[in-house]
């Protein structure tokens, strides 16, 4: 089962690079051959002269970052990107989602689709597609959304997981909340699962847990790659009978409440984080004796999904990324409510004054498009807020 990664924009191409680096190192040092080869099969294919080539397509509207990532991968001596698996133009999308979505995306549709198709055809079995991008800039967010839409059309049955980087709350892109709102509203409908990392949170991990003094994007990206890797690397589920056969992306993350469900209970208290579903991944020593009962507590979950369905555990006795033991939690819960609400609130305040809107309408999206995006995110917020 293989995953085709699509790296978009500066962030996508920088995070993707670190991810493949972590994965290839982990696979090489794995004590079990089955683990190593399952992992290689997932993320790399071998060229005729035995080199490892990432199952990835690199896309940006400017050349610098892609050149850098390609060179750096080649210099590692361990793996590289496909010679022809990248596409760039001369000039970025200038932090403008509309420029990415309405101009650069459609203009380069054929080339990008062809690159992805080629990569998909190299897979014996396709587990899914994974676009990686930030939501704040112009290319990752705008072109990324457009490309996801094309992938949805071309591969209607394939699993699509979007990995999204949420922006720092201040200091980089002033229109980041608009770009985020436009991206999230569209992806919510297109994608099977959206995996989110927040730059602020990862930055805090770097400063407070890792004690890094002068934090760079490279530090931040290593943490992200480590977390992502531990989710995506081979692991065993209860029904996988000792072989790494499970689809690494293929859990049903889009849990939806039954349509006729009555909202009878009151609003949840603020400090309680109700989950729709949790996935716990344990790796390394003692994974089979680890006590996970607390995660199965029914009170954590909604009343309409029993905890044995809402909770999943994947395990692997192979230590990950040199850690003797590790645990990773992927959490579909109300914890994203606050950051999402924040983004929508800031963007909405800006929109109330129609500030910056002309920069977007210039490229062909309308005020109604904005309103539609706001409406659908308000709906998402409301559903999460009223989970019970």
């Amino acid at each position: 089962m293989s995953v085709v990664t699509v790296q978009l924009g500066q962030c996508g191409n920088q995070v993707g690079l670190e991810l493949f680096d972590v994965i290839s190192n982990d696979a090489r040092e794995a004590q079990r051959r089955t683990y190593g080869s399952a992992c290689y099969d997932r993320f790399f294919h071998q060229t005729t002269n035995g080199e490892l080539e990432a199952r990835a397509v690199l896309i940006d509207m400017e050349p610098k970052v892609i050149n850098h990532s390609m060179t750096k991968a080649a210099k590692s001596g361990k793996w590289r990107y496909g010679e022809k698996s990248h596409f760039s133009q001369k000039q970025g999308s200038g932090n403008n989602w509309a420029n990415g979505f309405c101009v650069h995306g459609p203009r380069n549709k054929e080339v990008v689709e062809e690159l992805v198709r080629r990569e998909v055809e190299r897979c014996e079995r396709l587990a899914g597609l994974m676009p990686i991008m930030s939501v704040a800039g112009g290319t990752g967010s705008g072109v990324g959304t457009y490309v996801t839409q094309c992938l949805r059309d071309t591969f209607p049955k394939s699993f699509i997981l979007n990995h999204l980087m949420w922006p720092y709350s201040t200091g980089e892109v002033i229109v980041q909340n608009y770009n985020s709102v436009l991206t999230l509203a569209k992806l919510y409908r297109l994608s099977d699962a959206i995996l989110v990392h927040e730059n602020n949170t990862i930055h805090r991990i770097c400063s407070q847990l890792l004690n890094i003094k002068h934090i760079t994007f490279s530090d931040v990206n290593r943490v992200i790659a480590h977390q992502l890797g531990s989710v995506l690397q081979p692991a065993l589920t209860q029904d996988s009978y000792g072989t790494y056969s499970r689809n690494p992306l293929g859990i049903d993350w889009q849990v939806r409440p039954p349509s006729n469900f009555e909202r009878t209970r009151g609003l949840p208290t603020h400090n309680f984080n109700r989950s729709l579903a949790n996935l716990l991944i344990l790796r390394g020593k003692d994974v089979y004796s680890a006590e996970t009962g607390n995660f199965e507590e029914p009170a954590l979950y909604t009343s309409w999904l029993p905890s044995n369905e809402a909770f999943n555990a994947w395990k692997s006795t192979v230590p990950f990324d040199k850690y003797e033991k590790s645990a990773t939690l992927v959490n579909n819960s109300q914890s994203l409510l606050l950051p999402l609400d924040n983004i929508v609130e800031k963007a909405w305040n800006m929109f109330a004054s129609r500030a910056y809107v002309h920069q977007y309408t210039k490229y062909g999206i309308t005020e109604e498009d904005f309103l539609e995006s706001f409406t659908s995110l308000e709906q998402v917020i409301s559903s999460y807020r009223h989970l019970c």
Partner: protein
Amino acid sequence: MTQSVVVQVGQCGNQVGYRFWDLALREHAYVNKKGLYDEAISMNETHTNLAGGSVQAVLVDMEEGVVNQIRQGPLKDVFDSTQLLTDVSGSGNNWAMGYMTYGSAYREQIIEKLRKMAEHCDCLQCFFLIHSMGGGTGSGLGTRVLRLLEDEFPEVCRIVTSVYPSEEDDVVTSPYNSVLAMRELSEYADCVLPVENQSLMNIVNRIRRYSGKTGSAVRMDSTVISGHGGLSTGEKPFDAMNNIVANLLLHVTSSARFQGSLNMDLNEIPMNLVPFPRLHYLVPSLTPLYSLADVSMPPRRVDQMFSDAFSKEQQLIGAEPRHSLYLACALLLRGDVGVSDLQRNIQRLRPTLPFVWWNQEGWKAGLCSVPPFGHTHSLLALANNTCLKATFSRLKERFMKLYRKKAHLHHYLHVEGLEQSTFSEAVSSLSSLIAEYQQLDNTKDRVIPNAPRLSIAT
């Protein structure tokens, strides 16, 4: 790689442009010598062009003097004759002459030259127009060129550096010319970086006073003030002032010319700093200017640089943004300044600066690793700020003083193609610009609640 074309119009435009190219060439020569380039950058076409002799510029003046000097001076090999356009008699400090008479006469030739330059570019990203507001050619023909750019290259970003006249300018008609030009700037520029001669003069005088003192830290060979050591020799009256403007442009273009950890594309400037189409005037401030660095710079000095950027003395126009309302603010850093310096200083300064309620986090930053020659680091702040209301109101008053008496009006009305309505339209364009700033400024000390959110049927 993307390229930009500099279009310098009129005496002031060409003199400032000259300082820009002189310093830019010097900066690149220095950087090459030190081997500061990484591989990616040595491929950079802007750089090869700079060093290889052909520079992306179009020089326009309706007199010959300044352009001839450039042609005979040390940079003579840098420009070739296809890039130059001159006439002999000038526009006589008359906007209408520049805009109408010369604008119509030279329209085709100018377009031709611009197209030629554009063809040299692999990916043309931006036009930089440099001109003064007070005379006839820069102001009139300059803004006509701006309009041609909009017609011919609608997708290419237009950033204008406009030198505004001092209150006691030699040119009597400068308020007319400035207000007539402003209407064009408001309509056709993506961004305007206004600079006032009075402010430049004040800064230069302060630097001279400092450097007069013995043991002062000011290095006179620094590019900020002196052209000395550059390719040209001998200083002309405006040189020191023009160097400041040239440095402003060096900063704005640094991300396109050199490597950096946080690149800021030129088209990201209007995207992030211009919330409403006409409010695209960005107040520049440049630091350090006179409190120059010694070479080993403790972090305290970096923080000082950030603070200075928001003080009145460092603004390149006579205004005080700190006491008005910020709509957005960009920090363009050069040299050994890191992301953590940036974050720390934004957090430190943020509480002291009023930002409009819907853009409380309205900061944009760029980091370019190569500092200006003679510095370890420097900062250009570009503020979209309502303080411009006062600047523009003063200009309007000066205009009205003449206009009420119809003083000198006949010089303009004689010019073919100019109607009296041009004047009234220009004033009302300026008035409505002032009103837009005023309206936003009115929200400054008010506590404005969040906009009521969309309610969703659940």
